[in-house]
């Protein structure tokens, strides 16, 4: 299944791209973050995959994930065709 990831701010700088599409096996289990018994891909798993490939410096604990343009929790399942964005601590205003 394909997941689109868009990068903003620090993540755009560290990844060197505005976004990418990642193909995960159906029922992908993340080796770091999925708890035993969880068979679905979560937002947390998508982040750990991206962080490992791009060498992201920010700890997942300070981030918030968004799926399809809405804030969600890290254990939210991610489905084929979803758009995932990792939100660093915001600094607007």
């Amino acid at each position: 299944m394909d997941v689109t990831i868009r990068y903003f701010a620090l993540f755009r700088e560290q990844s060197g791209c505005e976004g990418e599409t990642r193909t995960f096996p159906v029922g992908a289990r993340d080796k770091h973050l999925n708890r035993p018994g969880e068979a679905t891909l979560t937002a947390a798993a998508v982040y750990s995959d991206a962080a490992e490939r791009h060498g992201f410096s920010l700890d997942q604990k300070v981030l918030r994930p968004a799926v399809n343009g809405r804030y969600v929790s890290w254990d939210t399942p991610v489905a084929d065709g979803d758009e995932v964005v990792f939100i660093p601590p915001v600094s607007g205003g």
Partner: protein
Amino acid sequence: MSETRPLSAVASISFLVREDPLEPYVFDVAQQLGQHFPEVGGVVTFTGRVRNHHNGRVVTALEYSVYPELAQFEGERIVQEGLSRFGLIYAHAAHRVGPVPIGEVAVWVLAGGAHRQESFSACRWIIDEIKKTVPVWKHEWYGDGHDEWILGNPGSESER
């Protein structure tokens, strides 16, 4: 009390995100408020401008990055919640993104209630929520040649 009117009487959306300057747009909104909402008696606005310094360093340039779709959604949600939570009659906010010159308006909030008390409280609440939640990030360039992405305070889930 008069009949209800759409917010589009003075602004078509409750939260505006754009790269163009916010002046004079935001001042036009404030100026036109009275003729469209005569029951508003207390208006409080907050204007955030780009500073030429940060943590003792000289800031020479600044650019905001934005996740547009989520910024629009969260901004509108915050303004609407401020409106109902404090019983306002009218509220509007705007955030500029992209490069913003020193001294220009970066963020702006207007809270209009029948009386000053709810307008002061709501204006403060709306700007605080925008700064906590709306996905906008500040990139600063300094006089010493360095640059930095500013990261806000993530806080805990309960503070959000």
